[in-house]
């Protein structure tokens, strides 16, 4: 497959990349990977992708209408996230950055929870232990080390669980991510590093971070890296599933590079026209992760139009509910500022509370 993205000295076409479904929706074979998924599983993944895309669009319009402070859209990365998210076992634990709405969906976290951070009512938004999905990490790369530490805890517990951590192409330049590779290699930690190479870190192309394919970073740290077509949900699913199983079985870490594309802006604050050309975006439209699955389901499995329509309907309903949930989301109580700053009593916290109450700030919203 040629993606027309030139890396120094080697064109994409020469880079091995696991693909099971072409952009046209043709099932292709791969020497190492096959899929066991049947029609219903694949349809379920199409449904997942359709729903998160719809919810993501709703969030974007909520932001435009002033209901959210910010939104980080995932358009284009649905297959990467659903493929990875559906490969997880219930007990696996995941560490997201800020764009993993699709993983949150797979972990069963109510969509309105994802939006709490973006509305500015919370820095987290869900119970990370309940959903086995950690709170968002905004400081690029920090969560990679946290995930490796978690995985080392799993190791010490003798549990058969994998830990998966998500970050972007840009994040691979941070010291923390590379230290996470060192630790994972040194301790054979049961962790899967899942990098969504969406070609951009805000305005910077991946080539600013690395002149060779990202998946190769792992080699130098002594564990396998693999590049998968991040717009192919079947391939992402199989590659991730194997890496997670490998981790659970004590085989150590894997770096998965999901080669994909951020179709939208970095966030709603961003203006991508300043740094990239339409033609690039257009080219990637032909590799849409959702469309190719639909084409496959129609052609290969004769899924009827009504089934697709039902999901579109369902997605709209969920989007409407999301909108309602967001609009009715209350502002936090001012006193909540003090609530979990510390686990135990702290004199400066008590003082702050007293101050707020005396000033008459506490008690009401604003």
């Amino acid at each position: 497959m040629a993606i027309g993205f030139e890396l120094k000295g080697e064109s994409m076409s020469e880079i091995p990349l696991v693909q099971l479904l072409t952009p046209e929706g043709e099932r292709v074979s791969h020497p190492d990977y096959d899929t066991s998924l049947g029609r219903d599983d694949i349809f379920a993944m199409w449904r997942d992708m359709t729903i998160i895309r719809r919810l993501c669009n709703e969030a974007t319009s909520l932001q435009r209408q002033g209901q959210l402070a910010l939104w980080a859209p995932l358009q284009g990365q649905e297959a990467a996230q659903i493929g990875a998210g559906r490969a997880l076992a219930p007990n696996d634990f995941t560490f997201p950055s800020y764009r993993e709405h699709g993983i949150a969906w797979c972990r069963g976290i109510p969509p309105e929870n994802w939006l709490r951070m973006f509305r500015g009512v919370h820095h987290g938004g869900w119970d990370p232990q309940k959903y086995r999905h950690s709170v968002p990490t905004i400081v690029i790369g920090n969560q990679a080390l946290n995930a490796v530490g978690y995985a080392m805890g799993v190791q010490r517990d003798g549990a058969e669980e994998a830990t998966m951590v998500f970050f972007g192409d840009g994040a691979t330049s941070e010291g923390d991510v590379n230290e996470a590779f060192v630790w994972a290699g040194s301790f054979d930690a049961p962790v899967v590093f899942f990098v969504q190479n969406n070609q951009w870190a805000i305005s910077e192309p991946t080539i600013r971070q690395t002149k060779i394919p990202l998946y190769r970073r792992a080699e130098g740290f002594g564990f396998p890296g693999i590049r998968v077509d991040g717009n192919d949900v079947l391939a992402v699913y199989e590659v991730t599933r194997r890496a997670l199983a490998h981790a659970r079985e004590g085989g150590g870490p894997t770096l998965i590079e999901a080669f994909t594309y951020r179709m939208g802006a970095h966030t709603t604050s961003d203006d991508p026209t300043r740094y990239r050309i339409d033609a690039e975006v257009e080219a990637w439209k032909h590799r849409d992760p959702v469309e190719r699955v639909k084409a496959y389901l129609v052609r290969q499995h004769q899924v009827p139009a009504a089934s697709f329509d039902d999901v579109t309907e369902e997605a709209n309903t969920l989007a409407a509910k999301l909108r309602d949930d967001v609009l009715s989301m209350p502002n936090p109580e001012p006193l909540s500022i003090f609530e979990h700053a510390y686990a135990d009593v702290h004199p400066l916290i008590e003082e702050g509370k007293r101050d707020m109450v005396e000033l008459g700030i506490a008690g009401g919203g604003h």
Partner: protein
Amino acid sequence: MAQMTMAKALNEGLRRAMENNPKVLLMGEDIGKLGGVFRVTDGLQKDFGEDRVIDSPLAESGIVGTAVGMAIRGYRPVCEIQFDGFVYPAFDQIVSQVAKLHSRSDGVYTMGLVIRLPYGGQIGAIEHHSESPEGYFAHTAGLRVVSPTTPNDAYWMIQQAISHDDPIIFCEPKCRYWEKGDVDLDHPPRGLFEANVAREGRDVTVVTYGPSVRTALRAADAAAAEGRSVEVIDARSIAPLDFGVMVTSVQKTGRLVVVAEAPANASVSAEIAARLAEDCFYSLSAPPLRVTGYHTPYPPSRIEEEYLPSVDRILDAIDRVIGFES
């Protein structure tokens, strides 16, 4: 005189510094084509080229660590850290190399680099985008820390910082990026390390800096309506502090309120209060009070107003220092 926003004034100041000295380089994330997320470097890469306006890989220690090497080579790097909360990965390079290499090299190395840091709250942002890390740098010997609060100061202070031979953490109150003001393109208003009496008054001295200056001025307006004359000092230089101006004021008013967004504990506001308690011991007729962000992580933006020093909280402190008796 020209009217412009602070963001534009910084842009013009950077441009002028780059024109005046070919050794001046800019480095940071997204500062090239995008012009920075706040557009402070807008158009500079186009005009000065990719060698002088460098889009860096995504790593802050890398930005500062390579800037150190460039400074050793004789360049004058100006680093942009995208937001306050992302300066910490560079903390080690700043504290262990930037702050100490001039001294370690017996003065042979000039660490004349500038680290630009959009900081503070009041912009409704998500976590890590509203922090006030200036205290960490003020505490670090070997560094200087400054913060402009008007377009005119911004235009001049960035140039003064770039031509200064010590490393400077240049804290930009991002909530004021889009406010317009007059810029005098010919004459700097004052030295880089001089405080400014932003408003004269007789009854109480309010010392503040950065994003809180506007709030303090508003509080002074409100206090005036109640017949209280509040002097507001914009420190401008956070480290070193210009205590001369502050002592003169407190000797006049006898009352001190220090205002800052950063939590009070072991902070710049603590320094101002402690030092003025020492230097103006007999002039003070009330204890020095501090109005700051609370001792918690910066809260979600929907309640940042309740967290930050507000006009009400400042007025309350003014009431207390004036009413102080027992």
